[in-house]
């Protein structure tokens, strides 16, 4: 993949530093009136999630990280590995649970996700933004309790726990924004 210089730095650009893939989270041009210009950059390691501050001399170049995103269907998990199938060529891959901690709570069988790879390495699994889930358990609403609580906890069929309005009951289907984990509406 090509090289990029500091003038092409922008949020979400993926670059390779010391052999690791990083994403630019913040980028600021800094220049003393009578001094050398540089970019003050906050980067996030795409494998470990570690966030780091770095400075790059103006004009400095780095290698752009080639991140490929593929549509894959989630099939099943055995507790340690999650198995996905490429929707186009039906190839299957296993992703260790610790690499998709945040996203695993949204994975319903046969959900089509976007899986990003850096080389052979999986760096992110993104489920659809809006997904419907059946509630397996939530406390029944207590009459007269509306003044103090506007929401309560509900457990979804995947095991995820989300905040829902008081009128929601066990067995109902609800729509969730998977980016934030927010309840959106009742689903049918």
């Amino acid at each position, binding site marked *: 993949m090509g090289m990029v210089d500091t003038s092409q730095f922008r949020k979400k650009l993926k670059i390779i530093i010391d052999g690791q893939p990083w994403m630019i989270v913040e980028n600021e041009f800094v220049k*003393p009136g009578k001094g050398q210009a540089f970019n003050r950059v906050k980067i996030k390691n795409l494998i470990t999630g570690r966030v780091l*501050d770095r400075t790059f001399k103006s004009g400095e170049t780095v290698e752009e990280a080639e991140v490929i995103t593929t549509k894959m269907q989630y099939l099943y998990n055995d507790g340690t590995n999650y198995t996905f199938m490429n929707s186009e060529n039906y190839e299957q891959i296993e992703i260790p649970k610790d690499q998709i901690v945040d996203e695993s709570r949204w994975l319903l069988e046969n959900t089509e996700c976007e899986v990003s790879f850096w080389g052979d390495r999986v760096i992110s699994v993104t489920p659809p933004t809006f997904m419907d889930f059946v509630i397996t358990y939530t406390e029944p609403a207590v009459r007269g309790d509306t003044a103090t609580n506007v929401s309560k906890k509900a457990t979804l069929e995947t095991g995820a726990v989300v905040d829902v309005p008081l009128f929601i009951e066990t067995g109902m289907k609800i729509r969730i924004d998977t980016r934030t984990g927010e309840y959106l509406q009742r689903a049918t």
Partner: protein
Amino acid sequence: MVPFPNEKSNKSFTIQSARFRAGIIRKIRDFFQTRGALEVETPILSHAASTDCHIDVFKTRFEPFPGSPLKEDVFLQTSPEFHMKRLLAEGFPDIFQICKVFRNGEVGRIHNPEFTLLEWYRRDYDMYKMIEETAELCTCVLGNYRNQKKTYRDLFIEHTGIDPLKTNCAEISLFCKSKGKTHPVFDTLTDALQFTMSEIIEPLLPKDTLCFVYNFPADQAVLALLDKDDSSVARRFELYINGMEIANGFEELTDPEENLRRLREQNLKRKAMGKPVIPEDNSFIESLKAGLPLCSGTALGVDRLIAIASESESIDATISFRWEIS
């Protein structure tokens, strides 16, 4: 009528921000007019330009007629200082100017390649008097801010424990790393000092305070006079307010030979950096031979001052259309 939403519109610049800006520009003009300085205008386009190795100039071409083989490189000013000093050398009194200047490549939160500069010169002022007047101007615009004056050396030692006049790149590098700051390779000690200043010291300067830093190391003298008693420092000052560099002032170097030497020195640095050489301004050097009086000058970033006055962290709301949408 509500303006139609448009991606190309500068949402942060409103009629209210235009009024605010106009009000501050008027205050600045009043300040100098009541103090007897003459407002001047000097050329924006010039045959010569600053040779400063860290400032990149916009170059264009003058053509006697379209398609003429006789073309000449001309430059947009990065500062009006050469022309203003020429006026002083011709016997002009105290002068001030509010003008557009251009610096290539500078785009960011507090940078725009085209920006408004206030520059003024006072005959018979030394650096200390110039600092006083700069503080008075800022007080006139911003109201009562606290005021702090420290030498570059004292400030540097206070925050790093390192004497900037007796250090080296390796020591600075080690210090930066100990503070968790990764830095680009330092080519020169000046680069290392400037990095430390902007990344470590500036954020520690007190808020809502006019922070004057003076007596810069001689390597950062630019066109300031070296101190008569201690040639390791120059009579140059900078003003920082809330993390922004607002103004830069010199007790001016008057000697034509030394001026020419410093312009050439910057061109040598440009060559070493692989940057194009800029013609030294001979008209400026010639004018100095007629005799530039003892004087001091300050350049102040007007857009940034307005940003400070409006408690904004960027200059976006101070300019009608940023570079990206101009």
